[in-house]
């Protein structure tokens, strides 16, 4: 075991941090209020090659390892959690499905553009009646000659309305349960595909989240991803990597909140001294720092295991659950440390608290994560 980032990783981490603080952080508050897709920022990320970090060079990516990608998500999220999740969704569940399960033609058609940031990717699984129980989805795909016709709707889709290609999960036969689930790549302007209402959320407001609707949406069979009935397996395998990404997002949010609170506690004076001098505050910060340390190790461990092809289901879930619970805890305490100012929208910590909450819910609620962990424990993993 080695507990030091390699020189290469440390350098990348520093670079991501500096870039994010300079090009993303100054706009985070404003983007939260505007609640618009941060197109300018995504272009900057594309120009830097950050939209395809773990994608092989032969497909236009940076060919870097998974940990490098995770470090990027962490630092981008630390500057702006919305931008962090846009990037994580784009790569983990917007690009990887095509890279891992696509035909050579599909890969050539989409991956280089996604890796360059010319295309934005999205992932459409959730439905009103299919949240944690993803297999209960009802969006249907009926074979019709050389095409499939898709009908149904998805909700809570990140990058909705801004993505160029959506990996959509349907069922070709609901009687087959999970074995009927089939994935498709749907281009944004496909007739019969439309973006519905934009979700009004507590936080993560620059991560535009929408309903998407399929009304006799006709896609050629060449847009099917993998074989009929492989869709559930595809979705579940993507979630593992996705979880590490969300763990990294949680870690970034927690770090940002902690940094603000530590700075404030050392600067704010009451009773003639910095409030940090009160054990109540110092000990709170000590607890926050400890949890962030543990969260970081869990997230980096999961990234390491994925990179090295080690079984990672349990560790990815632990990383996601722990890091996002940590984000919620640290952000809430950060508001507390900033007192009345923490509650004010003129200071960044209340936004961090609002942003943190969803990380405990999406890409598998932390209850589902515990289920995954429990099943692994049962198997002696």
């Amino acid at each position: 075991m080695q507990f030091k980032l390699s020189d290469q990783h440390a350098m990348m981490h520093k670079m991501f941090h500096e870039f994010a603080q300079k090009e993303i952080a100054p706009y985070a508050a404003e983007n939260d209020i505007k609640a618009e897709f941060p197109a300018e920022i995504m272009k900057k990320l594309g120009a830097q090659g950050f939209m395809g970090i773990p994608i092989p060079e032969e497909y236009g990516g940076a060919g870097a390892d998974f940990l490098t990608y995770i470090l990027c998500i962490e630092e981008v999220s630390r500057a702006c959690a919305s931008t962090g999740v846009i990037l994580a969704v784009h790569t983990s569940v917007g690009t990887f499905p095509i890279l891992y399960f696509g035909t050579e033609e599909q890969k050539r058609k989409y991956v280089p553009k996604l890796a360059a940031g010319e295309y934005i990717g999205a992932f459409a699984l959730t439905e009103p009646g299919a949240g944690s129980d993803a297999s209960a989805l009802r969006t249907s795909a009926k074979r019709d000659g050389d095409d499939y016709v898709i009908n149904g709707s998805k909700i809570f889709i990140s990058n909705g309305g801004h993505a160029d290609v959506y990996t959509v999960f349907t069922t070709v036969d609901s009687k087959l349960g999970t074995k009927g689930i089939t994935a498709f790549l749907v281009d944004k302007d496909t007739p019969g595909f439309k973006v519905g209402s934009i979700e009004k959320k507590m936080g993560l407001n620059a991560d535009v989240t929408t309903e998407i609707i399929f009304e006799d949406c006709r896609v050629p069979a060449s847009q099917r991803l993998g074989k009929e009935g492989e869709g559930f397996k595809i979705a579940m395998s993507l979630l593992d990597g996705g979880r590490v990404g969300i763990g990294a997002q949680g870690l970034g949010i927690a770090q940002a909140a902690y940094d603000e609170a530590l700075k404030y506690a050392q600067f704010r004076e009451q009773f003639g001294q910095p409030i940090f001098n009160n054990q109540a505050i110092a000990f709170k910060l000590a607890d926050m720092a400890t949890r962030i340390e543990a969260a970081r190790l869990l997230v980096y461990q999961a990234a390491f295991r994925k990179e090295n092809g080690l079984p990672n289901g349990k560790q990815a879930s632990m990383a996601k659950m722990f890091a996002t619970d940590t984000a919620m805890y640290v952000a809430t305490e950060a508001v507390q440390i900033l007192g009345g100012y923490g509650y004010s929208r003129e200071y960044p910590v209340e936004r961090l608290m609002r942003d943190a909450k969803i990380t405990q819910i999406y890409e598998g609620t932390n209850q589902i994560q515990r289920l995954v962990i429990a099943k692994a424990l049962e198997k002696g993993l």
Partner: protein
Amino acid sequence: MNFQLSAEHEMIRKMVREFAQKEVAPTAAERDEKEEFSREIFDKMAGMGLTGIPWEEQYGGAGSDFLAYVIAVEELSRVCGSTGVTLSAHISLCSWPIWKYGTEEQKQKYLRRLAEGSALGAYGLTEPSAGTDAGAMRTNAKVDGDNYILNGTKIFITNGDGDIFVVFAITDKTKGAKGISAFIVEKEFPGFRVGGHEKKLGIRASSTCELVFEDCIVPKENLLGKEGDGFKIAMSTLDGGRNGIAAQALGIAQGAFEAALSYSQGREQFGQPIFNFQAISFMLSDMATKIEASRLLTYQAAWLEQQQLPYGKASAMAKLYASDAAMEITTNAVQIFGGYGYSREYPVERMMRDAKITQIYEGTNEVQRLVISRYIKG
């Protein structure tokens, strides 16, 4: 010990609950979204006799007690945390110090208007450099003939858009906390103005303002208590104010819990209501237990105050516990609602945003622990 509410208290709860459902709940989400303080709702509360619950009828009050008051704040907060704190600050922070320390003239002149609800009351203590360290305030009051002249700024003032303010200012810089005095200020006094409105995470339908005093002329007869009594008045006012905030937190937690319980029984995944999963039902059990404890602590503190028994430790404990519980309960309620919990179309994310401030104002929960530690030391 008796753990049953009297028939009178049950009736008050029922009355306020019905009022809250009919007049407050339907606009709670919209007022939060638009950050709109509703004077109309306050006027309706006045019409119901809620704005003077604990005060004697001779001052225009309802002649009821502090327990009835916390029940009212609880029931209002259950549907709208902003409305709960509007009433709490009005009664505990503005009306109470006048009731407790005012001359008969001051009570007839000001307490009556507050009790009847023709005036909305507020309390001006906090300043940019004086939060937890309230004694570090800088607003000062100088004698000038028949008046005091006030200069300074207060921030984070609940009901800042109101009419009557109990304001704290330094009359003698050399005496530290013992040089602070309390004043009753009317919004019409020359030199008084409302500065900016605070942009907040939650309780967005509650009016939270900066108050600016620029050579503000306050008649001498508006001194509350004696010169130098101000800090004592401020601190003792907060003791009772804590009961109001405990009740607000309790109400918010109750509303969130009920919503989560109902959702978990209606929402099906994996072919059954999610309530069937121990993860969810145990979360709800913990929530219900903490609410029960919060309620008992809050009612105990109110009862002690009513009985004129010492209540400082009890009110600090109630505020501390109920607000920490509310934060946890509302956060878990959002979790139980899943993706929908994060949506502004459902009420629980608003309740979570509202809950946070209850851990901070009227004495941060760190201050509550300080207060409690002093009591337990003996």
